Protein backbone atom coordinates (compact mmCIF):
# COMPACT_ATOMS: atom_id res chain seq x y z
CA UNK A 1 0.00 0.00 0.00
CA UNK A 2 1.45 3.31 -1.08
CA UNK A 3 1.82 6.20 1.33
CA UNK A 4 -0.79 8.82 0.46
CA UNK A 5 1.71 11.61 -0.07
CA UNK A 6 4.26 9.63 -2.00
CA UNK A 7 4.92 10.65 -5.61
CA UNK A 8 6.19 8.37 -8.35
CA UNK A 9 7.11 9.84 -11.68
CA UNK A 10 7.48 7.00 -14.17
CA UNK A 11 8.91 7.19 -17.67
CA UNK A 12 7.43 10.58 -18.44
CA UNK A 13 7.88 11.65 -22.03
CA UNK A 14 6.48 14.83 -23.49
CA UNK A 15 6.61 15.82 -27.15
CA UNK A 16 5.39 19.11 -28.53
CA UNK A 17 4.32 19.17 -32.14
CA UNK A 18 6.38 21.66 -34.15
CA UNK A 19 6.25 22.72 -37.80
CA UNK A 20 9.58 20.97 -38.31
CA UNK A 21 8.49 17.77 -36.61
CA UNK A 22 8.11 17.06 -32.92
CA UNK A 23 10.13 18.61 -30.16
CA UNK A 24 11.18 16.30 -27.36
CA UNK A 25 10.62 18.32 -24.21
CA UNK A 26 10.97 15.52 -21.69
CA UNK A 27 12.50 12.12 -22.23
CA UNK A 28 12.07 9.26 -19.79
CA UNK A 29 11.89 11.16 -16.53
CA UNK A 30 11.84 9.03 -13.39
CA UNK A 31 11.76 10.46 -9.90
CA UNK A 32 10.36 8.96 -6.72
CA UNK A 33 9.52 11.24 -3.84
CA UNK A 34 9.06 9.72 -0.43
CA UNK A 35 6.19 11.01 1.66
CA UNK A 36 7.15 14.37 3.14
CA UNK A 37 10.31 14.73 1.11
CA UNK A 38 11.54 18.03 -0.35
CA UNK A 39 13.08 17.70 -3.78
CA UNK A 40 14.44 20.53 -5.93
CA UNK A 41 14.71 20.35 -9.67
CA UNK A 42 17.22 22.73 -11.12
CA UNK A 43 17.99 23.43 -14.74
CA UNK A 44 18.17 26.17 -17.34
CA UNK A 45 15.03 27.49 -18.97
CA UNK A 46 13.75 25.20 -21.67
CA UNK A 47 14.82 21.98 -19.95
CA UNK A 48 11.18 21.05 -19.43
CA UNK A 49 11.14 21.35 -15.65
CA UNK A 50 8.00 23.47 -15.60
CA UNK A 51 6.34 21.13 -18.06
CA UNK A 52 7.08 18.26 -15.69
CA UNK A 53 5.48 20.17 -12.84
CA UNK A 54 2.38 20.87 -14.93
CA UNK A 55 2.09 17.17 -15.73
CA UNK A 56 2.29 16.26 -12.04
CA UNK A 57 -0.35 18.89 -11.29
CA UNK A 58 -2.62 17.35 -13.91
CA UNK A 59 -2.71 20.56 -15.96
CA UNK A 60 -0.95 18.92 -18.94
CA UNK A 61 -1.05 15.32 -20.11
CA UNK A 62 2.19 13.53 -20.90
CA UNK A 63 2.77 11.89 -24.27
CA UNK A 64 3.83 8.79 -22.43
CA UNK A 65 4.43 7.57 -18.90
CA UNK A 66 2.51 8.23 -15.72
CA UNK A 67 2.57 10.03 -12.43
CA UNK A 68 1.31 8.28 -9.32
CA UNK A 69 0.33 10.18 -6.21
CA UNK A 70 -0.28 7.91 -3.25
CA UNK A 71 -0.34 5.06 -5.74
CA UNK A 72 -3.12 6.65 -7.78
CA UNK A 73 -2.56 7.66 -11.36
CA UNK A 74 -2.89 11.40 -12.06
CA UNK A 75 -5.59 11.94 -14.67
CA UNK A 76 -6.33 15.63 -14.15
CA UNK A 77 -6.23 18.30 -11.49
CA UNK A 78 -6.98 17.05 -8.01
CA UNK A 79 -7.25 18.46 -4.54
CA UNK A 80 -4.35 16.28 -3.44
CA UNK A 81 -1.95 18.58 -5.25
CA UNK A 82 -1.38 22.26 -4.52
CA UNK A 83 0.58 24.35 -6.98
CA UNK A 84 2.30 27.66 -6.40
CA UNK A 85 2.95 29.47 -9.67
CA UNK A 86 5.69 31.92 -10.46
CA UNK A 87 3.12 34.74 -10.57
CA UNK A 88 1.05 35.11 -7.43
CA UNK A 89 -2.16 34.93 -9.49
CA UNK A 90 -4.39 36.62 -6.95
CA UNK A 91 -7.86 37.70 -7.97
CA UNK A 92 -7.55 41.51 -8.03
CA UNK A 93 -11.17 41.95 -6.89
CA UNK A 94 -10.76 39.82 -3.77
CA UNK A 95 -9.32 40.81 -0.43
CA UNK A 96 -6.54 38.81 1.22
CA UNK A 97 -9.17 36.87 3.13
CA UNK A 98 -11.28 36.00 0.14
CA UNK A 99 -8.28 35.13 -2.00
CA UNK A 100 -7.15 32.64 0.61
CA UNK A 101 -10.68 31.31 0.99
CA UNK A 102 -10.69 30.76 -2.77
CA UNK A 103 -8.32 27.85 -2.16
CA UNK A 104 -10.59 26.10 0.36
CA UNK A 105 -11.92 22.72 -0.71
CA UNK A 106 -15.34 22.60 -2.30
CA UNK A 107 -18.31 22.19 0.02
CA UNK A 108 -16.36 22.94 3.18
CA UNK A 109 -18.33 24.03 6.23
CA UNK A 110 -18.45 27.86 6.24
CA UNK A 111 -17.43 28.29 9.85
CA UNK A 112 -14.61 25.80 9.58
CA UNK A 113 -13.45 27.56 6.41
CA UNK A 114 -13.35 30.93 8.16
CA UNK A 115 -11.33 29.41 11.00
CA UNK A 116 -8.84 27.90 8.57
CA UNK A 117 -8.43 31.17 6.70
CA UNK A 118 -7.83 32.96 9.98
CA UNK A 119 -5.17 30.46 11.00
CA UNK A 120 -3.49 30.68 7.60
CA UNK A 121 -3.37 34.47 7.74
CA UNK A 122 -1.47 34.14 11.00
CA UNK A 123 0.76 31.41 9.60
CA UNK A 124 1.94 33.56 6.71
CA UNK A 125 2.12 36.71 8.86
CA UNK A 126 -0.58 38.80 7.20
CA UNK A 127 -2.56 39.74 10.28
CA UNK A 128 -4.01 43.21 9.82
CA UNK A 129 -4.13 42.85 6.04
CA UNK A 130 -7.24 40.65 5.90
CA UNK A 131 -9.27 43.25 4.01
CA UNK A 132 -6.50 44.56 1.77
CA UNK A 133 -6.73 44.13 -1.98
CA UNK A 134 -3.79 42.61 -3.86
CA UNK A 135 -2.97 46.03 -5.36
CA UNK A 136 -2.41 47.34 -1.84
CA UNK A 137 0.13 44.61 -0.99
CA UNK A 138 3.82 44.35 -1.80
CA UNK A 139 5.09 41.58 -4.05
CA UNK A 140 6.27 39.55 -1.06
CA UNK A 141 2.94 39.90 0.70
CA UNK A 142 1.10 38.89 -2.43
CA UNK A 143 3.27 35.78 -2.50
CA UNK A 144 2.30 35.04 1.09
CA UNK A 145 -1.37 35.24 0.16
CA UNK A 146 -0.74 32.83 -2.71
CA UNK A 147 1.05 30.42 -0.35
CA UNK A 148 -1.81 30.59 2.14
CA UNK A 149 -4.32 29.97 -0.65
CA UNK A 150 -2.40 26.90 -1.77
CA UNK A 151 -2.24 25.60 1.80
CA UNK A 152 -5.96 26.24 2.30
CA UNK A 153 -6.68 23.19 0.16
CA UNK A 154 -4.60 21.01 2.54
CA UNK A 155 -2.64 19.43 -0.33
CA UNK A 156 -0.71 16.22 0.20
CA UNK A 157 1.79 17.34 -2.41
CA UNK A 158 3.05 20.86 -2.97
CA UNK A 159 4.44 21.91 -6.32
CA UNK A 160 6.48 25.11 -6.50
CA UNK A 161 7.05 26.48 -9.99
CA UNK A 162 9.88 29.04 -9.65
CA UNK A 163 7.71 30.73 -7.06
CA UNK A 164 10.24 33.34 -5.95
CA UNK A 165 11.92 34.14 -9.26
CA UNK A 166 10.23 37.52 -9.54
CA UNK A 167 11.03 38.67 -5.99
CA UNK A 168 13.98 40.77 -4.88
CA UNK A 169 16.86 39.00 -3.14
CA UNK A 170 15.83 39.89 0.41
CA UNK A 171 12.17 39.05 0.02
CA UNK A 172 13.20 35.86 -1.72
CA UNK A 173 15.33 34.73 1.26
CA UNK A 174 12.47 35.54 3.60
CA UNK A 175 10.06 33.51 1.54
CA UNK A 176 12.49 30.58 1.41
CA UNK A 177 12.64 30.59 5.22
CA UNK A 178 8.88 30.69 5.29
CA UNK A 179 8.52 27.72 2.95
CA UNK A 180 11.05 25.72 4.96
CA UNK A 181 9.17 26.53 8.16
CA UNK A 182 5.81 25.51 6.69
CA UNK A 183 7.25 22.37 5.14
CA UNK A 184 8.93 21.43 8.43
CA UNK A 185 5.65 21.74 10.25
CA UNK A 186 3.20 20.27 7.79
CA UNK A 187 5.52 17.69 6.21
CA UNK A 188 3.95 18.08 2.79
CA UNK A 189 5.78 16.31 -0.01
CA UNK A 190 7.27 19.21 -1.95
CA UNK A 191 8.72 19.50 -5.40
CA UNK A 192 10.44 22.76 -6.26
CA UNK A 193 11.38 23.78 -9.76
CA UNK A 194 13.94 26.56 -10.01
CA UNK A 195 16.85 27.90 -12.03
CA UNK A 196 18.47 29.22 -8.88
CA UNK A 197 21.13 26.75 -7.76
CA UNK A 198 21.41 28.25 -4.26
CA UNK A 199 17.68 28.01 -3.78
CA UNK A 200 17.69 24.38 -4.90
CA UNK A 201 20.41 23.48 -2.38
CA UNK A 202 18.98 25.55 0.42
CA UNK A 203 15.53 24.03 0.24
CA UNK A 204 15.92 20.55 -1.17
CA UNK A 205 16.83 17.31 0.53
CA UNK A 206 17.78 16.17 -2.93
CA UNK A 207 18.66 18.23 -5.97
CA UNK A 208 17.69 16.87 -9.36
CA UNK A 209 19.78 18.37 -12.15
CA UNK A 210 18.10 18.53 -15.53
CA UNK A 211 19.55 19.33 -18.92
CA UNK A 212 17.64 20.41 -22.02
CA UNK A 213 17.03 19.15 -25.56
CA UNK A 214 15.64 16.73 -24.76
CA UNK A 215 14.89 17.31 -21.09
CA UNK A 216 16.56 14.53 -19.15
CA UNK A 217 17.78 14.05 -15.60
CA UNK A 218 21.50 14.57 -15.49
CA UNK A 219 22.24 13.81 -11.89
CA UNK A 220 20.57 13.55 -8.50
CA UNK A 221 22.50 14.92 -5.55
CA UNK A 222 21.42 14.22 -1.95
CA UNK A 223 21.91 17.31 0.21
CA UNK A 224 22.90 17.19 3.82
CA UNK A 225 23.31 20.58 5.38
CA UNK A 226 23.97 21.55 8.98
CA UNK A 227 20.89 22.24 11.08
CA UNK A 228 20.83 25.98 10.37
CA UNK A 229 20.99 25.55 6.57
CA UNK A 230 23.65 28.28 6.57
CA UNK A 231 24.23 29.59 3.10
CA UNK A 232 27.82 30.43 3.92
CA UNK A 233 28.91 27.04 5.26
CA UNK A 234 31.61 24.98 3.56
CA UNK A 235 29.13 22.19 2.87
CA UNK A 236 26.85 24.61 1.04
CA UNK A 237 29.79 25.81 -1.02
CA UNK A 238 30.90 22.34 -1.97
CA UNK A 239 27.39 21.42 -3.14
CA UNK A 240 27.26 24.61 -5.11
CA UNK A 241 30.59 23.81 -6.74
CA UNK A 242 29.53 20.27 -7.48
CA UNK A 243 26.30 21.30 -9.18
CA UNK A 244 28.05 24.06 -11.03
CA UNK A 245 30.63 21.63 -12.36
CA UNK A 246 27.84 19.28 -13.29
CA UNK A 247 26.30 21.94 -15.48
CA UNK A 248 29.29 23.74 -16.90
CA UNK A 249 32.07 21.15 -16.64
CA UNK A 250 35.47 22.71 -16.11
CA UNK A 251 34.68 25.81 -18.16
CA UNK A 252 37.17 28.27 -16.63
CA UNK A 253 35.25 31.46 -17.24
CA UNK A 254 32.12 30.10 -15.59
CA UNK A 255 34.01 28.60 -12.65
CA UNK A 256 35.61 31.93 -11.86
CA UNK A 257 32.36 33.08 -10.31
CA UNK A 258 33.21 30.85 -7.37
Amino acid at each position, binding site marked *: MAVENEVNIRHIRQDFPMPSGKLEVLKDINIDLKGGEFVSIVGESGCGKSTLLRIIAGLDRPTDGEVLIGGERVAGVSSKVGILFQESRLLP*WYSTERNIAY*GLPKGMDKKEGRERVKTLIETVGLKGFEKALPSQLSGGMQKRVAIARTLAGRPKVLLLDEPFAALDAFTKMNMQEEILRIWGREKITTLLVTHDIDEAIYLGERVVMMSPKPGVIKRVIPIELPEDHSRTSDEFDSYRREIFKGFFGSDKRMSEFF
Partner: protein
Amino acid sequence: MNKWQQMSVKYKVLSVCSVLLVLLIVLYWQVGAERGWFNTILLSSPSDIYKSFQNLWGSGSLQKHILVSFKRVMIGYLSGAGLGVLVGFILSTMHSLDRLLSFLMGIIRPIPALALFPLFILWFGIGEASKIVVIAFMSFWPTFLNTEEGVRQADKNLLELADALQKSRINKMFTVLLPSTLPYIFAGLRLAISRAWGGVVVAEMLAASSGIGFLIEYSRDMSQTASMFVGVITIAIIGCAVDMLLRFIQSRVCYWHTEV
Protein backbone atom coordinates in the same frame (compact mmCIF):
# COMPACT_ATOMS: atom_id res chain seq x y z
CA MET B 1 2.77 61.43 -0.96
CA ASN B 2 3.83 65.02 -1.53
CA LYS B 3 3.93 64.51 -5.26
CA TRP B 4 0.51 62.96 -5.17
CA GLN B 5 -0.85 65.97 -3.28
CA GLN B 6 0.68 68.31 -5.81
CA MET B 7 -0.86 66.36 -8.63
CA SER B 8 -4.18 66.39 -6.86
CA VAL B 9 -4.06 70.18 -6.52
CA LYS B 10 -3.18 70.53 -10.19
CA TYR B 11 -6.05 68.22 -10.98
CA LYS B 12 -8.44 70.27 -8.89
CA VAL B 13 -7.33 73.53 -10.49
CA LEU B 14 -7.81 72.05 -13.95
CA SER B 15 -11.29 70.84 -13.01
CA VAL B 16 -12.28 74.33 -11.88
CA CYS B 17 -10.74 75.77 -15.05
CA SER B 18 -12.73 73.40 -17.24
CA VAL B 19 -15.94 74.79 -15.73
CA LEU B 20 -14.63 78.35 -16.03
CA LEU B 21 -13.91 77.73 -19.69
CA VAL B 22 -17.55 76.92 -20.38
CA LEU B 23 -18.69 79.99 -18.42
CA LEU B 24 -16.26 82.12 -20.40
CA ILE B 25 -17.63 80.84 -23.70
CA VAL B 26 -21.20 81.57 -22.56
CA LEU B 27 -20.16 85.05 -21.46
CA TYR B 28 -18.49 85.77 -24.81
CA TRP B 29 -21.55 84.39 -26.56
CA GLN B 30 -23.89 86.67 -24.57
CA VAL B 31 -21.79 89.78 -25.04
CA GLY B 32 -21.36 89.01 -28.74
CA ALA B 33 -25.10 88.58 -29.21
CA GLU B 34 -25.87 91.87 -27.44
CA ARG B 35 -23.31 93.80 -29.49
CA GLY B 36 -24.48 92.25 -32.74
CA TRP B 37 -21.25 90.36 -33.48
CA PHE B 38 -23.34 87.57 -34.92
CA ASN B 39 -26.81 86.97 -36.30
CA THR B 40 -29.09 86.14 -33.35
CA ILE B 41 -31.69 84.60 -35.69
CA LEU B 42 -29.19 81.80 -36.38
CA LEU B 43 -27.45 81.86 -33.01
CA SER B 44 -29.72 82.88 -30.16
CA SER B 45 -28.16 84.61 -27.20
CA PRO B 46 -27.86 82.69 -23.93
CA SER B 47 -30.41 85.00 -22.32
CA ASP B 48 -32.93 84.29 -25.10
CA ILE B 49 -32.30 80.59 -24.70
CA TYR B 50 -32.89 80.95 -20.97
CA LYS B 51 -36.16 82.77 -21.58
CA SER B 52 -37.24 80.07 -23.99
CA PHE B 53 -36.28 77.50 -21.38
CA GLN B 54 -38.43 79.27 -18.76
CA ASN B 55 -41.40 79.27 -21.13
CA LEU B 56 -41.02 75.63 -22.08
CA TRP B 57 -40.46 74.61 -18.46
CA GLY B 58 -43.26 76.80 -17.15
CA SER B 59 -45.77 75.28 -19.53
CA GLY B 60 -44.55 71.82 -18.54
CA SER B 61 -43.91 70.82 -22.13
CA LEU B 62 -40.13 70.51 -21.74
CA GLN B 63 -40.52 68.08 -18.84
CA LYS B 64 -43.00 66.10 -20.91
CA HIS B 65 -40.55 65.90 -23.84
CA ILE B 66 -37.67 64.93 -21.58
CA LEU B 67 -39.73 62.23 -19.91
CA VAL B 68 -40.88 60.77 -23.22
CA SER B 69 -37.36 60.66 -24.67
CA PHE B 70 -35.89 59.38 -21.42
CA LYS B 71 -38.37 56.54 -21.28
CA ARG B 72 -37.62 55.52 -24.87
CA VAL B 73 -33.90 55.63 -24.28
CA MET B 74 -34.06 53.69 -21.04
CA ILE B 75 -36.23 50.88 -22.35
CA GLY B 76 -34.28 50.58 -25.60
CA TYR B 77 -30.90 51.00 -23.95
CA LEU B 78 -31.46 48.62 -21.08
CA SER B 79 -32.81 45.87 -23.32
CA GLY B 80 -30.24 46.41 -26.10
CA ALA B 81 -27.22 46.80 -23.82
CA GLY B 82 -28.41 44.01 -21.53
CA LEU B 83 -28.76 41.70 -24.50
CA GLY B 84 -25.32 42.82 -25.71
CA VAL B 85 -23.69 41.76 -22.44
CA LEU B 86 -25.56 38.46 -22.38
CA VAL B 87 -24.90 37.54 -26.02
CA GLY B 88 -21.29 38.73 -25.74
CA PHE B 89 -20.78 36.45 -22.78
CA ILE B 90 -22.47 33.46 -24.36
CA LEU B 91 -20.69 33.75 -27.70
CA SER B 92 -17.25 34.32 -26.25
CA THR B 93 -17.53 31.29 -24.01
CA MET B 94 -19.11 29.02 -26.65
CA HIS B 95 -16.60 29.05 -29.45
CA SER B 96 -18.46 26.88 -31.93
CA LEU B 97 -21.60 28.99 -31.68
CA ASP B 98 -19.45 32.09 -32.08
CA ARG B 99 -17.92 30.68 -35.28
CA LEU B 100 -21.31 29.66 -36.57
CA LEU B 101 -22.81 33.12 -36.10
CA SER B 102 -19.73 35.14 -37.01
CA PHE B 103 -20.71 35.84 -40.61
CA LEU B 104 -24.31 36.65 -39.74
CA MET B 105 -23.13 39.08 -37.05
CA GLY B 106 -20.55 40.42 -39.46
CA ILE B 107 -23.10 41.46 -42.06
CA ILE B 108 -25.71 42.83 -39.69
CA ARG B 109 -23.31 44.90 -37.62
CA PRO B 110 -22.22 47.45 -40.25
CA ILE B 111 -25.83 48.41 -41.06
CA PRO B 112 -26.51 51.88 -39.66
CA ALA B 113 -29.42 51.52 -37.29
CA LEU B 114 -31.13 54.56 -38.74
CA ALA B 115 -31.13 52.96 -42.17
CA LEU B 116 -33.29 50.27 -40.62
CA PHE B 117 -35.61 52.74 -38.92
CA PRO B 118 -38.06 53.01 -41.85
CA LEU B 119 -38.26 49.22 -41.89
CA PHE B 120 -38.82 49.14 -38.15
CA ILE B 121 -41.66 51.63 -38.62
CA LEU B 122 -43.12 49.34 -41.25
CA TRP B 123 -42.84 46.33 -38.98
CA PHE B 124 -43.57 47.75 -35.55
CA GLY B 125 -45.68 50.79 -36.39
CA ILE B 126 -44.93 54.45 -35.94
CA GLY B 127 -45.50 54.29 -32.16
CA GLU B 128 -43.08 53.55 -29.34
CA ALA B 129 -42.01 50.08 -30.45
CA SER B 130 -40.09 51.09 -33.59
CA LYS B 131 -38.15 53.77 -31.69
CA ILE B 132 -37.31 51.45 -28.84
CA VAL B 133 -36.14 48.77 -31.26
CA VAL B 134 -33.86 51.17 -33.12
CA ILE B 135 -32.33 52.35 -29.82
CA ALA B 136 -31.92 48.77 -28.64
CA PHE B 137 -30.21 47.91 -31.94
CA MET B 138 -27.83 50.84 -31.49
CA SER B 139 -27.06 49.99 -27.85
CA PHE B 140 -26.50 46.31 -28.54
CA TRP B 141 -23.30 46.48 -30.59
CA PRO B 142 -20.94 48.47 -28.38
CA THR B 143 -21.80 46.40 -25.31
CA PHE B 144 -21.73 43.14 -27.25
CA LEU B 145 -18.33 43.83 -28.82
CA ASN B 146 -16.80 45.12 -25.59
CA THR B 147 -18.08 42.20 -23.56
CA GLU B 148 -16.66 39.76 -26.08
CA GLU B 149 -13.33 41.55 -26.06
CA GLY B 150 -13.34 41.62 -22.26
CA VAL B 151 -13.85 37.88 -22.00
CA ARG B 152 -11.12 37.37 -24.58
CA GLN B 153 -8.75 39.57 -22.58
CA ALA B 154 -9.40 37.77 -19.29
CA ASP B 155 -6.16 36.70 -17.63
CA LYS B 156 -5.37 33.15 -18.80
CA ASN B 157 -3.28 32.65 -15.68
CA LEU B 158 -6.27 33.29 -13.43
CA LEU B 159 -8.44 30.96 -15.48
CA GLU B 160 -5.78 28.27 -15.14
CA LEU B 161 -5.60 28.91 -11.41
CA ALA B 162 -9.35 28.36 -11.19
CA ASP B 163 -8.89 25.10 -13.11
CA ALA B 164 -6.09 24.01 -10.79
CA LEU B 165 -8.40 24.70 -7.84
CA GLN B 166 -11.09 22.60 -9.54
CA LYS B 167 -13.64 25.38 -9.80
CA SER B 168 -16.77 24.60 -11.77
CA ARG B 169 -17.59 26.40 -15.01
CA ILE B 170 -20.25 28.48 -13.32
CA ASN B 171 -17.96 29.33 -10.43
CA LYS B 172 -15.18 30.33 -12.83
CA MET B 173 -17.66 32.48 -14.71
CA PHE B 174 -18.58 34.49 -11.63
CA THR B 175 -15.26 34.58 -9.81
CA VAL B 176 -12.92 35.21 -12.74
CA LEU B 177 -14.56 35.94 -16.09
CA LEU B 178 -17.28 38.35 -15.04
CA PRO B 179 -15.13 40.57 -12.78
CA SER B 180 -12.34 40.79 -15.34
CA THR B 181 -14.84 41.68 -18.04
CA LEU B 182 -16.64 44.36 -16.01
CA PRO B 183 -14.37 47.28 -16.99
CA TYR B 184 -14.94 46.40 -20.64
CA ILE B 185 -18.67 46.08 -20.10
CA PHE B 186 -18.74 49.55 -18.59
CA ALA B 187 -16.78 50.98 -21.50
CA GLY B 188 -19.40 49.43 -23.77
CA LEU B 189 -22.25 50.76 -21.65
CA ARG B 190 -20.86 54.29 -21.81
CA LEU B 191 -20.47 54.12 -25.58
CA ALA B 192 -23.95 52.67 -25.93
CA ILE B 193 -25.70 55.33 -23.86
CA SER B 194 -24.36 58.17 -25.98
CA ARG B 195 -25.38 56.32 -29.12
CA ALA B 196 -28.83 55.66 -27.66
CA TRP B 197 -29.34 59.38 -27.03
CA GLY B 198 -28.26 60.12 -30.56
CA GLY B 199 -30.62 57.49 -31.85
CA VAL B 200 -33.67 58.69 -29.97
CA VAL B 201 -33.25 62.27 -31.14
CA VAL B 202 -32.98 61.32 -34.80
CA ALA B 203 -35.87 58.86 -34.55
CA GLU B 204 -38.02 61.55 -32.96
CA MET B 205 -37.11 64.02 -35.66
CA LEU B 206 -38.20 61.55 -38.31
CA ALA B 207 -41.36 60.17 -36.80
CA ALA B 208 -42.71 61.44 -33.50
CA SER B 209 -45.03 63.96 -31.98
CA SER B 210 -43.18 64.27 -28.70
CA GLY B 211 -39.69 64.00 -27.28
CA ILE B 212 -36.58 66.17 -27.41
CA GLY B 213 -35.90 65.34 -31.05
CA PHE B 214 -39.43 66.37 -31.94
CA LEU B 215 -38.99 69.60 -29.95
CA ILE B 216 -35.88 70.51 -31.94
CA GLU B 217 -37.42 69.66 -35.28
CA TYR B 218 -40.70 71.42 -34.45
CA SER B 219 -38.84 74.53 -33.28
CA ARG B 220 -36.99 74.58 -36.59
CA ASP B 221 -40.32 74.51 -38.43
CA MET B 222 -41.46 77.42 -36.28
CA SER B 223 -38.13 79.24 -36.71
CA GLN B 224 -37.68 79.29 -32.93
CA THR B 225 -33.92 79.04 -32.78
CA ALA B 226 -33.83 79.53 -29.01
CA SER B 227 -36.08 76.52 -28.42
CA MET B 228 -33.86 74.44 -30.68
CA PHE B 229 -30.97 75.35 -28.40
CA VAL B 230 -33.01 74.42 -25.34
CA GLY B 231 -33.46 70.95 -26.86
CA VAL B 232 -29.79 70.59 -27.73
CA ILE B 233 -28.57 71.79 -24.34
CA THR B 234 -31.02 69.52 -22.56
CA ILE B 235 -29.56 66.54 -24.41
CA ALA B 236 -26.04 67.67 -23.55
CA ILE B 237 -26.83 68.00 -19.85
CA ILE B 238 -28.71 64.73 -19.59
CA GLY B 239 -26.01 62.91 -21.58
CA CYS B 240 -23.30 64.32 -19.34
CA ALA B 241 -25.25 63.45 -16.18
CA VAL B 242 -25.92 59.89 -17.31
CA ASP B 243 -22.25 59.40 -18.17
CA MET B 244 -21.23 60.71 -14.75
CA LEU B 245 -23.70 58.35 -13.14
CA LEU B 246 -22.30 55.43 -15.11
CA ARG B 247 -18.76 56.36 -14.13
CA PHE B 248 -19.80 56.57 -10.52
CA ILE B 249 -21.42 53.14 -10.69
CA GLN B 250 -18.33 51.80 -12.42
CA SER B 251 -16.03 53.10 -9.71
CA ARG B 252 -18.20 51.37 -7.12
CA VAL B 253 -18.65 48.10 -8.97
CA CYS B 254 -15.03 47.87 -10.18
CA TYR B 255 -13.60 48.99 -6.84
CA TRP B 256 -10.30 47.22 -7.45
CA HIS B 257 -9.78 49.12 -10.70
CA THR B 258 -7.98 52.23 -9.52
CA GLU B 259 -7.67 54.08 -12.83
CA VAL B 260 -11.39 54.69 -13.49
